[in-house]
């Protein structure tokens, strides 16, 4: 065990340097692995200690709050945070403020109204929000389907904020085209296997389905396998995912999936650490930095300009 400690214990390595913590929702989702990667690159080049922490489960805000509290105890110099719950982290951000530790908000946006009303503050926000991504996906389907068709939705973990905003965005995105009809919307808990089984079942009852929107790429990739298993052609059903998972992009190249939403986590990670560095050296940082969110489809892949992979 001791061995593990030393191996996993970045803090002890270079005690001299300032330590920046990156707290994400979970580290077993490629999206955040990419974010971590980006952050690490910059951190190394800027000679910062980067401490990456996350709760075991994406939905577990309370654990994330505990982690931040513990990092405050540890007196890290700055915290990059992707909240598992945009309102729930507000109290702990206040604690960070009191401890004089700057918070840099990444990806999912903290509930600013609540934060303001409690007199809290964050140094800056970097990212693009899930709602927008959902809208983008919606619009894409509208144009691909020429304004009419049957669509299914694969939801994330019920009640999970990220899932909700992506879905809300999507619904608003297709709202303008009344011809498009959401025939069913089922939870697949972000999981690849549930994406597979649930979509397989959906295909049973909706053989005439035109498209599916999955709230993340893992479920989308599951859906793709389900289509194959059902003996349909990939071309029969438009599959749109979310996150620009490297596998999803590969799958788009092979013409299985059709599109995914790129929030460019690597970029977010890099920017985050960079801003932290500026702050630590007394520099000023902009109020908000929006990272271009884009939809990746086969066409856009030809002129490849994807930050991921």
């Amino acid at each position, binding site marked *: 065990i001791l061995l593990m400690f030393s191996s996993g214990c970045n803090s002890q390595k270079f005690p001299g340097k300032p330590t920046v913590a990156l707290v994400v929702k979970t580290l077993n989702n490629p999206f955040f692995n990419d974010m971590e990667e980006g952050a690490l690159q910059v951190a190394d080049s800027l000679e910062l200690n980067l401490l990456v922490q996350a709760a075991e489960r994406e939905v577990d805000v309370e654990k994330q709050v505990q982690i931040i509290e513990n990092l405050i105890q540890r007196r890290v110099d700055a915290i990059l945070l992707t909240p598992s719950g945009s309102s729930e982290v507000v109290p702990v951000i206040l604690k960070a403020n009191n401890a004089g530790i700057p918070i840099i908000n990444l990806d999912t946006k903290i509930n600013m109204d609540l934060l303001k009303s409690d007199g809290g503050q964050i140094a800056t926000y970097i990212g693009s929000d899930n709602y927008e991504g959902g809208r983008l996906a919606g619009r894409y389907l509208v144009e691909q389907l020429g304004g009419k068709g049957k669509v299914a939705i694969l939801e994330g973990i019920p009640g999970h904020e990220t899932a909700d905003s992506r879905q809300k965005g999507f619904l608003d995105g297709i709202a303008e085209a009344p011809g498009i009809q959401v025939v069913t919307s089922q*939870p697949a808990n972000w999981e690849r296997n549930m994406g597979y089984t649930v979509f397989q*079942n959906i295909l*049973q009852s909706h053989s005439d389905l035109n498209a599916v929107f999955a709230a993340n790429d893992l479920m989308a990739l599951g859906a793709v396998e389900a289509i194959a298993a059902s003996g349909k052609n990939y071309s029969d059903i438009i599959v749109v995912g979310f996150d620009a998972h490297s*596998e999803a992009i590969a799958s788009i190249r092979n013409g299985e999936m059709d599109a995914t939403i790129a929030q460019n986590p690597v970029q977010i990670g890099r920017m985050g650490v960079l801003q932290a560095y500026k702050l630590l050296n007394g520099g000023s940082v902009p109020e908000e930095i929006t990272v271009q969110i884009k939809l990746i489809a086969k066409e856009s892949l030809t002129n490849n300009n994807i930050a991921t992979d």
Partner: protein
Amino acid sequence: MKLFEKIEFDQIRRYGTVIGLVGLCLFFTLLSEHFLTISNLMNVAQQSAIIAVISVGMTFVIITAGIDLSVGSVLAFSGVVMASALEGGLPIPVAIVIGFLVGFGCGAVNGLLITYGNLPPFIATLGMMSIARGAGLWYTDGRSISGFDDGFRFLATGEIFHIPVPVIIMIVIYVIAHFVLTRTKLGRYTYAIGGNEEAAILSGININFYKNVIYGIAGLLSALAAVILTARLNSAQPIAGIMYELDAIAATVIGGTSLMGGEGTIFGTLIGALIIGVLRNGLNLIGVSSFIQQIVIGSVIIGAILLDTNLKKMKTRSKR
């Protein structure tokens, strides 16, 4: 004559769950014309295969009055190890054997902790649940390993006489397990250990050995489930199998196996696994909203066992 009486009751008992399953199917057939079709039934069977296979190991474990919370994590861990072996270009059988070894290894460690470490199974496997999960994530850095050749994928996507391979695997496993449990020493000692461990020890049965074997088997079957899952998704994930332990335990207990140990049948477990599979499938077909789904699933699990135990109670006044 008394024996006769007894068998009769066992029948009713067994039917208890079967009735539940049939009722469920009837219900969905009424609500969706898509339910009672060959292709959909094949779906259900094939979707249930993974939990069904894991549940076999769980049944053995629970009959010994134990429990195994680590099956899901072990599935994920052995899955990624096998996958990286395939990725590394090892021949399919070799990679699979490696996966099996990992699974069996984790199971055996559970066994050792329980037998020689005197740990309650709940704790030993709870720890393993966390360790195996961590190990899988650490081994893959949290990323999944994807893209295998068709030879391997055949194990999930292939069909033999129009029957999906996973279903065939499931059936084979159940036949073997049933034989082992009813006809072999291993099987009978499984019951003996669960029913009265002290008595088993005093009869000179080497219970430590058998417990290790049984937990090892549970791990092995998780690895087998990992093969099916990986082949199906064409990808092995370190976060696969989360909460599978609950499904497997539910399937086993719905199947009439007592968590107090000493009682249970493989056939029952199969029914239990199918009930869960049908339920999930049916709810998708009729498109129940996600929140209600959870309420329904919970209620049906409770309902099924209410039906079952209260038929059971007819048999005799409960012992212990």
